[in-house]
């Protein structure tokens, strides 16, 4: 009877230890697979396919070109409008002098 009880106790102990080991290794396996899948999702930009990489230089050139162009066009428009008004003023002044 005592032997049977001892055997059952050892069996239970082994069972508990076994479940623990299986559980731990399952958790580790799950963590490892998650990490692998997360790492698989991230691809450094320089390792991307050439068509997927977005070059910075054209964006930079476009931004600066637009800024310079907008400033030049605006200053030119002021100069043109001012020249037109001053020309008209000069014409009017000469007309009034002729009178």
């Amino acid at each position, binding site marked *: 009877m005592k032997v049977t009880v001892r055997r059952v106790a050892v069996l239970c102990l082994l069972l508990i230890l076994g479940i623990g080991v299986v559980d731990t290794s399952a958790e580790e396996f799950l963590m490892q697979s998650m990490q692998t899948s997360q790492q698989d999702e991230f691809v450094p930009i320089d390792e991307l396919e050439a068509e997927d990489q977005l070059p910075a*230089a054209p*964006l*930079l050139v476009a931004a600066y070109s*637009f800024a310079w162009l907008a400033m030049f066009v605006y200053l030119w428009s*002021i100069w043109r*409008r*001012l020249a037109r008004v001053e020309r008209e003023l000069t014409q009017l002044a000469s007309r009034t002098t002729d009178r």
Partner: protein
Amino acid sequence: MFSPLIVLTTIVFVCAPVFIAWAPYESTMGLVQKIFYFHLPSWAAMFMAAFVCGIASAVFLFKGRIMADRIAVASAELAVVFGLIGLVSGPLWARKAWGVWWQWDARLTMALVLWMIFVSYLLLRKYGGPGSEKLAAGVALFGMANVPFVYWSVNVWRTVHPTTNVVPTLVAGMSGPLWWSLVGFLLLYALAMMARVRLEEQRAELERVYRELDD
């Protein structure tokens, strides 16, 4: 007065690309971050123009000074020009840094609304008919009041845009070209402002001469 300012502004803008090229690369964004050296100063000049337009409009509304109205209309036009530079350069930077051209978040949307307020000011002046200058002056006051909200929006609401503490924490190699560009944009603002106010004065003079001829 014009010539020294033209020379100074030209020198600053000719040197600016050299200093920007010398500036160190930002670690995460790389080359595209250099758009920042024109993007931020263009918005700073836009805010300056919005404030000048708002204050001049208030003076025109409450004191009736014609010169203040001329300053307001000149400044509103400059607010639109500098705002346009900011609105175009921002998405070009964002496309690389954020992966999208535009995000309808608080900062970007408010900045667009601010720009549209000054566009509406100019449209009102052009097509509003007699008395529209006073209505436009009221619009300019709202535009000016919107500026602090746009500035602080990055600190208050969740947005993809960097917060206002980026500039104080810049390294010397980056802050130098930034301040240089900022001075350049403010000089350009002053130069364009003087020329634009002169245009308004000449237009008023032309109108006066025509009236005299009619009489």
